[in-house]
């Protein structure tokens, strides 16, 4: 597919039941809100059929819910398609993309330890960035994260 309009039309027709909303923000950016259950098939469609590159996923704690944005770049037409899923904040669970897309491996591990999101089906969910002795259940990127370490020194002592 060689033009932007064709790509967007193709996605909207193919996945009309899965798309909640499509924001055509600018000629380089499209944000698509989708059903959580449709993530895997839409992501794989973009990765395999459209040939987009998986850029990264960003998890955001929006206080009322948790969002993940999966960014894909369709390089030939300079278009970035971002798929947005909304998860329940008490128990954020979503299907893992790693069994199908090796590129998603590390970012899912990172979101798991920093935001507490569970990725069902991830083959190797280990700590990536945080120390092994970092307390379980404490997620630094959450909006309600608080200092848990009594020995931390947060002033310069001046």
């Amino acid at each position, binding site marked *: 597919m060689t033009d932007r309009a064709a790509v967007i039309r193709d996605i909207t027709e193919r996945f009309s039941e899965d798309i909640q909303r499509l924001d055509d923000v*600018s000629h*380089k*950016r499209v*944000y698509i809100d989708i059903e959580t259950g449709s993530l895997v098939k839409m992501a794989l469609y973009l990765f395999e059929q459209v040939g987009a*590159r*998986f*850029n*990264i996923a*960003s998890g*955001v704690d929006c206080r009322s819910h948790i969002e993940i*944005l999966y*960014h894909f*770049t369709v*390089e*030939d037409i*300079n278009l*970035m398609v*971002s798929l947005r899923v909304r998860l329940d904040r008490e128990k954020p669970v979503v299907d893992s993309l790693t069994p199908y*897309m*090796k*590129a998603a*491996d*590390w*970012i899912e591990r990172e979101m798991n330890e920093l935001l507490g999101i569970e990725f069902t089906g991830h083959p190797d969910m280990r*700590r*990536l*960035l*945080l*120390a092994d002795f970092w307390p379980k259940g404490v997620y*630094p*990127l959450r909006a309600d*994260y608080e200092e848990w370490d009594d020995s931390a020194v947060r002033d310069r002592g001046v």
Partner: protein
Amino acid sequence: MGKRTTIPIGPFHPLQEEPEFFTLTVEGERVVDIDVRIGWNHRGIEKLSERKNFDQSTFVIERICGICSTSHPFAYTMAVEDVMQLEVPDRAKYIRTIIAEGERIHSHLLWAGLAGHFLGYNTVFMWVWKAREEILDVMEMLSGNRNNYAMFKPGGVRRDIDDDVIKPCLAKLDRIEATLDLVRKAVEDDPVLQARTKGVGVLTLQDVVDYSALGPTSRASGLARDVRKDSPYAAYPMLDWKMITTENGDVYDKVILRVLEMYESLSILRQALPNLPGGEIDANIKSVPPGEGVGHAEAPRGEVFHYVRSDGTNRPVRHKVRAPTFMNLPTYRESVVGETIADATIILAAIDPCYCCTERVAVVDGRGRRLHDGTDLVELSRAKTERLRREMGGA
């Protein structure tokens, strides 16, 4: 099945800046598995960004990585400008491009020196780092600092370039080109270096696509992707330069690709410096409206990606940073497995992770007995070069 031993490498080494921990599982001389453990450098910058306003963030973001210190604020400022759909003035675009290309040269020279060190060419290390001093002088003349330039801000650049530094900068660029010619000749003419690097650590095109690898790592395997061409930004579309790609995906290709990219960077600098357009350097952003934006820039190692979400206040609600090495590191599973221990160093270095890899090696057998005490993996690599040199008749 041969006996499997595990070699831990890391996390501190004299020539490595950033600590990492590799565990190589070997059977005899061949690597059969590799695991990478990171986290020694995690400083929680994404969370820190939420406490700082949009302008202050650039100072923190520059210090994500010292070697790609420009690419991160470049991508970040473009992300904020993407929220507002703002175009910065032309002079600011040119200045940003100049700083970014100067950094590309310094980063590739740094890498070339370290690659030379790992292969046993210590003279190359010294020459190349001496040439690197020239580009650092250029950066100091342009921005005031050798390393953290603090030139970027959302809306433009912080400081202008004086006309009277342009000629001395161009003179220094000529001296750098002379060193580049020597390095290129050394790489193309030395049979020992080619024996060490050709066919070693191959990353196929399919691997690159599966892992979404970036930058020189993917261009060396034939995937012609470069943010400066695919999604043009700043002054790149206004200047004349080529994207370099090679076909084989081995270490040799990665070396020659970076050398050729340095020539292109020199060409960009020579076009941009004498032809700076006049006008403002700053669009004077007063506030950032609510919204989300994405910025991406081509760092020396690949695409840097920043995502910013704003709610109309003066601080970001969320700032996601993704450095290129995050996507490139997992490709080690494909490029190192099957190779020998002596080649492991140069393969690990070839993707130019945001640090120079390999540290002290402790080789233990299955029962935990130390076979070699403190033997350096780098020494193994250099010993192989020496052996090849003798076999090939002292070239």
